[in-house]
């Protein structure tokens, strides 16, 4: 079978049937240096199986991320003989990839029902994603050639890309402000978000720089929390408690170089993937009712919109108007508040938000009549899904 035939055959055969999270706002205000990623994972797992009406004994596939060891997590949960299991690396790109691995396992018959469990005590233990003690070790080009100059952190790499994007295309600082403010507006309507105080453009522009041109409010909000997602076949999904949310299409692409940054803002990798993604789902960009776009740093959203073809190359800065990206706009973005105002759950909670939007569970922040939702994460490995109800 050709790749196109396989992709069409995969369409809507696998579904997300259960989701569970912790309360991100509550945990942000309650630090605990002994908080265990396993205990966090347990909480989310119980919430997710309760959500879909399955039991622990229905789970025959398990992946964990940030929860350091899948064996230990399985032992804690009493899952003795999963048919398919693996520990994913802790990077945020592995949320989208993890859902892909789970979908592949289900679609190929290697597992019936997969639990993806993410638990992160990052805020309590002071995770920094850069600086002393990070990125070193033997054979580290970063330690030898970047760190002696004080260069560190993915945010700084995004700062370099954003400055270049500004120079090439005239992208204004306000573009990032619109994204940060949109996230905040949505977070104010999300009961479990961290940040609920209003944010104006003046507030945004007055915020301190981290790696200038990026400000504190361009950065994801490191927090403690957990997420669990349950994936099974569309057939099995039909008799469960919640309406199934189908994976219409999912694709991945890469841009592997010596630096985290991409000299074309990941445009080449994303634009090569996008036709496969939309083609496999059999829909066009205009059919997408909302997008959850990984915003480890706000410029990631701009680069993703360009690469996925929602706007032209270099045009994202003027495209992201408050009207267009709001809950009632042409493309509502990051409806839970995203990583800068809901919580940095490394893409996992964005999947949950997409599911809740498609189920119509989002109350004040519900996108009307949402049928198709996009999740994407742009990084050296990018992944994107089109989900539908």
């Amino acid at each position, binding site marked *: 079978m050709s790749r196109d035939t396989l992709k069409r055959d995969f369409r809507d055969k696998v579904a997300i049937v259960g989701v569970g999270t912790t309360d991100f706002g509550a945990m942000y205000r309650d630090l605990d240096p002994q908080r265990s990623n396993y205990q966090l994972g347990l909480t989310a797992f119980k919430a997710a199986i309760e959500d879909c009406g399955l039991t622990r004994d229905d789970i025959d596939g398990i992946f964990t991320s940030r929860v350091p060891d899948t064996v230990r997590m399985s032992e804690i949960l009493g899952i003795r003989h999963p048919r398919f299991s693996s520990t994913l690396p802790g990077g945020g790109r592995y949320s989208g990839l993890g859902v892909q691995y789970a979908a592949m396992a289900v679609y190929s018959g290697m597992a019936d029902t997969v639990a993806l469990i993410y638990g992160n005590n990052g805020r309590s233990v002071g995770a920094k994603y850069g600086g002393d003690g990070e990125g070193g070790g033997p*054979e580290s080009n970063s330690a030898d*050639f970047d760190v002696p100059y*004080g260069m560190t952190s993915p945010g700084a790499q995004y700062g*370099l890309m954003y400055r270049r994007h500004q*120079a090439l295309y005239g992208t204004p600082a306000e573009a990032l402000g619109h994204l940060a403010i949109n996230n905040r507006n949505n977070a104010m309507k999300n009961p479990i978000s961290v940040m609920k105080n209003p944010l104006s453009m003046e507030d945004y522009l007055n915020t301190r720089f*981290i790696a200038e*041109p990026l400000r504190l409010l361009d950065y994801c909000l490191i927090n403690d929390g957990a997420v669990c997602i349950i994936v099974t076949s569309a057939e099995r999904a039909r008799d469960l408690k919640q309406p199934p949310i189908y994976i219409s299409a999912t694709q991945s692409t890469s841009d592997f170089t010596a630096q985290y*940054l991409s000299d074309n803002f990941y445009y080449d990798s994303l634009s090569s993937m996008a036709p496969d993604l939309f083609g496999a789902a059999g829909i066009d960009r205009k059919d997408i009712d909302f997008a959850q776009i990984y915003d480890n740093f706000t410029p990631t959203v701009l680069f993703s919109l360009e690469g996925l073809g929602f706007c032209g190359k270099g045009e994202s800065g003027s495209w992201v108007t408050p009207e267009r990206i709001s809950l009632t706009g042409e493309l509502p973005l990051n409806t839970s508040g995203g990583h800068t105002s809901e919580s940095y759950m490394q893409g996992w909670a964005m999947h949950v938000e997409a599911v809740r939007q498609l189920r119509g569970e989002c109350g004040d922040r519900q996108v009307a009549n949402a049928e198709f939702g996009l999740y994407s994460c742009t990084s050296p490995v990018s992944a994107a899904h089109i989900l539908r109800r």
Partner: protein
Amino acid sequence: MTNDAPYKRPLPDLERKLTQPYWEATKRHELVIQQCDACQHLWFPPSFCCPNCLGEAISWKPVSGRAKIWSWIDMWQMYFRGFADERPYLVAYVELEEGPRLMANLVDIDEERTGLTCDMPLEIVFDDVTPEVTLPRFRPIR
């Protein structure tokens, strides 16, 4: 840096065989990067083979030290204790005239970053930060 205080910033690993020729050259105030003997391709950072043809016969080629700015940041955040006193400090991603790119600090730039633009031409300067380590930095050609 002519400063009597001990140097407190992170330093490269001089024991790493793959990268030793680079640091030996900077100590002589020379910039060298790897070049493939078979196809003449140049690349950075150092590697075990040519990423163009996978050739493993590799030479270290002296390059001009002329470059331009791909982009830069001003780092305000304190990630390294050694940089605590000099924030914001400027880190640029620099494109060598010969093609490969590397990170470096820029020097001879005022606090307002007057006149600094992407693609501005640069030249290399060598900074003997310790008796063992010399770091290449770059300054604008004005």
